[in-house]
């Protein structure tokens, strides 16, 4: 089976979980005997060889990577895109290549990517999140092959339900209605799709994400001396709830001043979060680590005594699984898809600062709770691997190809 897949990021050029998920899924699909051609909107020219090399090094021999020149970066809002055009001299020199706004860019990507459908043989089209939906629809028109769209997040998750961008919503809705089948990363997301986009629940299959196992151990962390470390890892955006993390930090520090909080990640709220930490009087106890890559990610988890994911709306949420893999106890928001599939963790509503504070203090104070969560989480995360979600995707493919 040959699948033409449209994505917008792929490791190491990812800014969030989507690239990681696409990497794992395509690897799992290759395992299940599926040939995947992965189309990306943007592959930095200098890094291109590295990129290809990484793929072959990862032995994903059945996956072909294809780049389309655009200025798109994952998770970009239209405002960010406008700013990046102004800042990017190279881009302004080559106006002919880059569209005037994000939507023109998405559309241009769809035209280019759609063309690939002409000469790239495939049985089925699979695309990931809204920026690729138009590409998928275009490809479907050209090749006439069925379209599966994979929803990792919706506009309602990215905006927390406030200030939903109508143009993005329209593209999402069009993609969902045009698709022959929809894959959602959780029941949480499926409900969103059914409620907000008017989709028949029968058309939506839930395929939970998984995680790649990697047993590297690091150690010796200077910060650890005498301090307990609580970690936030993710884009510093409204969706991920960094502000709730800071409010909780404030509460925890009132009880135990020896705790340190690390925010790893970047995003449009970074500056305001630094200011907020200062306003709350905890600037000296909150460290901003910036965006981490590769082994630094695992290192950060291992350094932490506790990982907190206070997401306002998290369609899946891979990071808790990464933390569990690194034997770090996790507290996760109930507003997440991953909370549907893990038990050995603590759960809280993202807005419940007191509850999260109590959980954090409890885990840091009672070593048996810390140990039990650590061991229980580590055991539990072993059951995840990408073969299973890939197998479920193949089921969806087969059903679509048989016209069911």
């Amino acid at each position, binding site marked *: 089976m040959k699948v033409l897949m449209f994505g917008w990021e792929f490791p190491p050029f990812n800014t969030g979980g989507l690239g990681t998920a696409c990497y794992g899924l395509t690897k799992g699909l290759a395992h299940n005997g599926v040939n995947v051609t992965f189309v990306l909107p943007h592959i930095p020219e200098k890094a291109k060889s590295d990129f290809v090399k990484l793929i072959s090094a990862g032995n994903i021999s059945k996956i072909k990577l294809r780049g389309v020149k655009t200025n798109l970066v994952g998770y970009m809002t239209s405002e960010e895109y406008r700013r990046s055009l102004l800042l990017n001299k190279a881009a302004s020199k080559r106006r002919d290549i880059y569209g005037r706004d994000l939507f023109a860019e998405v559309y241009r990507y769809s035209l280019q990517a759609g063309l690939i459908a002409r000469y790239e043989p495939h049985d089925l089209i699979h695309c990931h999140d809204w920026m690729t939906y138009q590409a998928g629809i275009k490809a479907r028109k050209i090749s006439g092959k069925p379209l599966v769209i994979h929803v990792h997040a919706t506009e309602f998750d990215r905006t927390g339900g406030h200030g939903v961008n109508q143009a993005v919503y329209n593209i999402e809705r069009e993609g969902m209605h045009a698709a022959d089948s929809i894959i959602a990363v959780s029941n949480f997301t499926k409900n969103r799709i059914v409620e907000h986009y008017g989709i028949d629940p029968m058309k939506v299959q839930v395929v939970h994400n998984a995680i790649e196992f990697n047993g590297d151990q690091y150690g010796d962390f200077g910060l650890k001396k005498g301090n307990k470390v609580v970690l936030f890892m993710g884009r510093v955006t409204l969706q991920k709830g960094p502000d709730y993390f800071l409010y909780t930090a404030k509460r925890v520090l009132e*009880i135990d001043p020896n705790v340190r909080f690390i925010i790893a990640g970047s995003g449009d709220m970074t500056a305001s979060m630094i200011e907020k930490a200062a306003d709350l009087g905890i600037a000296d106890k909150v460290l901003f680590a910036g965006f981490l890559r590769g082994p630094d990610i695992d290192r950060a988890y291992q350094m932490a005594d506790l990982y907190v994911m206070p997401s306002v709306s998290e369609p899946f949420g891979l990071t808790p699984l990464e933390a569990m893999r690194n034997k770090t106890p996790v507290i996760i928001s109930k507003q997440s898809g991953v909370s549907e599939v893990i*038990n*050995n*963790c*603590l*759960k809280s509503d993202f807005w419940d600062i*007191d*509850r999260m*504070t*109590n*959980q954090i*203090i*409890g*885990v840091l*104070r*009672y070593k*048996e*709770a810390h*140990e*039990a*969560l650590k061991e*229980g989480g580590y055991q*539990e995360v072993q059951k995840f691997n990408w073969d299973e979600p890939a197998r479920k995707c193949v089921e969806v493919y087969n059903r679509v190809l048989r016209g069911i």
Partner: protein
Amino acid sequence: MVSVCFYFQVHQPHRLRNYTVFDIGKNHDYYDENKNRNILNKVANKCYIPTNKVMLSLLKKYPEFKVAYSFTGIVLEQFENFNPEALNTFQQLVDTGRVEILDETYHHSLAFLYSKEEFKEQVNMHSRKIRKLFGFKPQVFRNTELIYNNELAKFVEDLGYKGILSEGADHILGWRSPNFLYRPMTTNKIKLLLKNYRLSDDIAFRFSNKGWKEHPLTVGKYTQWINAVNGNGNCVNLFMDYETFGEHQWEDTGIFEFMRHLPGELLRHPDNNFMMPSELIKNYNSVAELDIHNLISWADVERDLSAWLGNRMQQSAVHSLYQLEKDIKLSNNEKLLSDWRKMQTSDNFYYMCTKWFNDGDVHKYFNPYDNPYESFISFMNILNDLRIRLDGQKATVPSVQISR
């Protein structure tokens, strides 16, 4: 001759509330009285009151019909506080003279494992409570969750009891039958009554299970199984939670109708009768000595203590609790003693069990907390508050010298 011996356990824990780090040192109210009241009244309406009605009519209709109950002290307290009507229906049953009451620890505790002294005090407390509410002096003992070994049998014999109940677990009985009385090793006179767990669980657990090959369980079929014991047993001990009726098995499963018709059907066989535990002890000899060195219980497939003491959180919580015994008792503070005792209820440790992640959902159903980790944190927070109260007590009562 086969004597059918029904014994029903009546218990509701005094549920602790979700006690957070913010409560420590400030709030000494540990109980979720709303929840306790609601649950007690719900179960009273679904189970206790309607089942007692059935039992009373059976006792009136069949002079041969007899049953036994064991009530924990804390469920009796809750009846007195929240639902005296339900208590009254039990008292009516006992007034017939064909209902026996067993003794147990007042707080449904694991005290025997940690403090013989405390165990004895709780048994005496329970005995006094039964005498006060029912005018009855129990002669037969059942320990919390039928936890049992030789040592307990000896201890209970020395307290003056004539009989003791436990689980007829396969791994201790081997080829032997639970349908006889035994003499516990190291004891002189006390007789051991063992639960026939197959016939008991057919009613308690499998009655409404549509996947069970004997479903639906009819009175006729069940009576045949009991009749079949004639010739190779003296008794059939049907021990179960009273909440089986109407709560675990809902009314619409037909459980009440089953119970209403069972005694009449059993009595049609001339060799069947009903006996209360003390009558079994009077009428039948022990057939052999039984050596049960390791602790057993009636819980889960393991029939051991792993539901309460299987993980480090449970062990740590229970040890920390019993470590306070000496100081609590020296404090001469009734409120402290009462709070400390309520924490001993085995349910508090059951909630911390992590087995149920793999072991079916029985534990989950009864757990007022989101998960075992939450219940551990809450319990330890309360313990911290108890310790603070104890220390405060010491500061104000200088005449009491305590070294920690």
